[in-house]
């Protein structure tokens, strides 16, 4: 048995830290320097304060990153003016893969030619001193959005820049984002990031962590998303993180969204409490449709509107918004700002006093909860000296299996499809240890969804592209 334990916190990261900070792009960054800068950061830049001050509607978080400093500064101001509650710093894909030299070269080319050759802000290339300048007059939390398996240097520079929210995790930033980065190393590197966040935290000013629940955003059964979120909350709590958001992506079924939110919220609190982490504050974040987006802007706008209503109905603490240009690539700043404004408008009008419920939601929630508990309990029972080892083993055994993950260590045995009501069902559980009764129930619910003799690829495509067709 290797269950989560407070004693699992890394005792001393200083030796590793010296190694991480010996990189020339760390530019002499020191613990003292980061501490001093954080001490001067306004209280409203900490997510705990933003969440405490939220009204009836979910808070709004756009995504956004461009290569140049000036571009990022403009984008930040535009998004803030449009009403974003959290401001994004989305990192380019070279930096995510620790290819800082290429990122730096393409940054220079972007600056020289006035065109963007990176799909985000190369934070490591820019460094903490310049990046602090982005936020001199900003009094909202900045959220680091990336997808980095080894985010140790990136997180150091982010926190030193005054960024108090770090998205990611050992599973959620490895399985969907990497093909070959070893999962065990990723889990260990994220222990470092979690510990670093904890070391820079105080009760009133915690560095907040957020997990990325959409995973591959492609037919992920809610029970898998919930399990991964609970596991990452526990891994972070072990390292001393005291402010954590779990999240999930819009499933495509209103009933399933309501049920997933309910189960995710209750299981996260319950397991944190059961393992002695009752002082961790947890929040629920909802991602607007993360799958294939409509190319038609009118339909994209309609989808964003619909997702906004769901965000209110499930009682999300924060919603991560999409733009009408989602299908076309990285959105222009003004389109991004428009999306924030539209979502703000809808959330204010349709705010819900409490999450909506119905007997259908309860029935769906009972199934998701039963499945997630089966998988979590199986993980806790796995042999190992530490909880992270059990988590790693769970992937090796196929207990955790994320559909359409590019990662070589993912089992790819679980097969999921949509039922006639567009809920995601487990057609074949593979090695995922849900009970026989739950597996049977999933198959019953799936009956009648496919036309006879339909090609498998067409059925999967239809399910994946349901928002496009």
């Amino acid at each position, binding site marked *: 048995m290797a269950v989560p334990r407070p004693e699992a916190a890394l005792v001393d990261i200083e030796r590793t830290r010296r190694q991480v900070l010996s990189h020339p792009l760390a530019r002499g960054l020191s613990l003292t320097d980061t501490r001093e800068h954080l001490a001067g950061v306004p209280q409203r830049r900490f997510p705990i304060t933003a969440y405490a001050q939220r009204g009836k509607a979910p808070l709004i978080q756009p995504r956004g990153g461009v290569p140049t400093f000036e571009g990022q500064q403009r984008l930040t101001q535009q998004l803030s003016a449009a009403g974003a509650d959290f401001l994004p710093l989305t990192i380019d894909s070279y930096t995510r893969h620790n290819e800082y030299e290429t990122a730096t070269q393409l940054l220079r080319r972007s600056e020289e030619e006035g065109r963007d050759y990176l799909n985000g802000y190369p934070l490591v290339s820019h460094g903490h001193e310049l990046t602090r300048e982005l936020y001199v007059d900003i009094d909202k939390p900045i959220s680091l959005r990336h997808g980095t398996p080894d985010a140790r240097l990136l997180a150091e520079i982010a926190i030193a820049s005054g960024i108090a929210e770090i998205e990611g995790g050992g599973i959620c930033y490895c399985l969907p984002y990497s093909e070959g980065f070893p999962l065990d190393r990723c889990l260990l590197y994220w222990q470092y990031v979690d510990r670093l966040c904890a070391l820079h935290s105080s009760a009133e000013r915690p560095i907040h962590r957020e997990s990325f629940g959409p995973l*591959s955003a492609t037919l992920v059964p809610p029970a898998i998303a919930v399990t991964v979120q609970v596991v990452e909350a526990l891994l972070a709590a072990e390292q001393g993180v005291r402010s954590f958001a779990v999240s999930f992506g819009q499933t495509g079924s209103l009933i399933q969204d309501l049920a997933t939110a309910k189960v995710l919220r209750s299981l996260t609190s319950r397991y944190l409490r059961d393992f002695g982490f009752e002082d961790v504050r947890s929040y629920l974040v909802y991602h607007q449709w993360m799958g294939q987006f409509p190319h038609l802007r009118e339909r994209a706008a309609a989808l964003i509107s619909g997702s906004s209503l769901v965000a209110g109905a499930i009682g999300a603490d924060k919603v991560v918004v999409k733009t009408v240009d989602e299908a076309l690539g990285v959105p222009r700043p003004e389109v991004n700002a428009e999306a924030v404004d539209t979502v703000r408008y809808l959330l204010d009008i349709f705010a819900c006093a409490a999450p909506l419920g119905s007997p259908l939601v309860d029935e769906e929630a009972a199934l998701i909860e039963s499945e997630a508990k089966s998988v979590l309990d199986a993980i806790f029972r796995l042999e190992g000296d530490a909880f992270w080892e059990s988590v790693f083993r769970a992937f090796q055994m196929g207990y955790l299996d994320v559909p359409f993950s*590019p990662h070589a260590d993912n089992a790819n045995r679980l097969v999921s499809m949509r039922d006639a009501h567009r809920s995601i069902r487990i057609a074949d559980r593979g090695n995922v240890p849900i009970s026989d009764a739950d597996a049977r129930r999933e198959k019953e619910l799936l009956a009648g969804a496919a036309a006879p003799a339909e090609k498998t690829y067409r059925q999967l495509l239809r399910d994946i592209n349901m928002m496009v067709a």
Partner: protein
Amino acid sequence: MSEDGQGRVVIGVIGDDIHVVGNRIMQLALEESGFRVFNLRTRNRPDHFSQAALETNADAVFVSSLNGEGEHWCAGLRDRFVDAGLDKVLLYVGGNIVVGKRAKEEVVALFRGYGFDRVYHQEPDIGVAIGDLIEDLKRGRSAP
């Protein structure tokens, strides 16, 4: 039909892009249409495609890019095939192949200039490319 069926196709995602969904579905769809597929999966450099085409004696290579890195990586791809004596191999590219919003015709012309035989920028139906491939293989590639 031989064991290679309709023909041999190398597929893969170029650059540091790891968008795998289209890649998985493309493999399934090509296989269901009778092709033998060699899937390089994600995060490939240009050399991976020419080496794989050489090793597998491929008839066609499908390069995809979802995050727009395609423009950066595809510029010299045809030259590598020519250098390896693979001028007859069909080169297709598809996905979301440039960063930002640009006219489709402009993007098609750019990649045709790079030596691609077919360019599918933001084409939602992968059946179109498979239909074109069947037609192109009947005719064979005549290098421009």
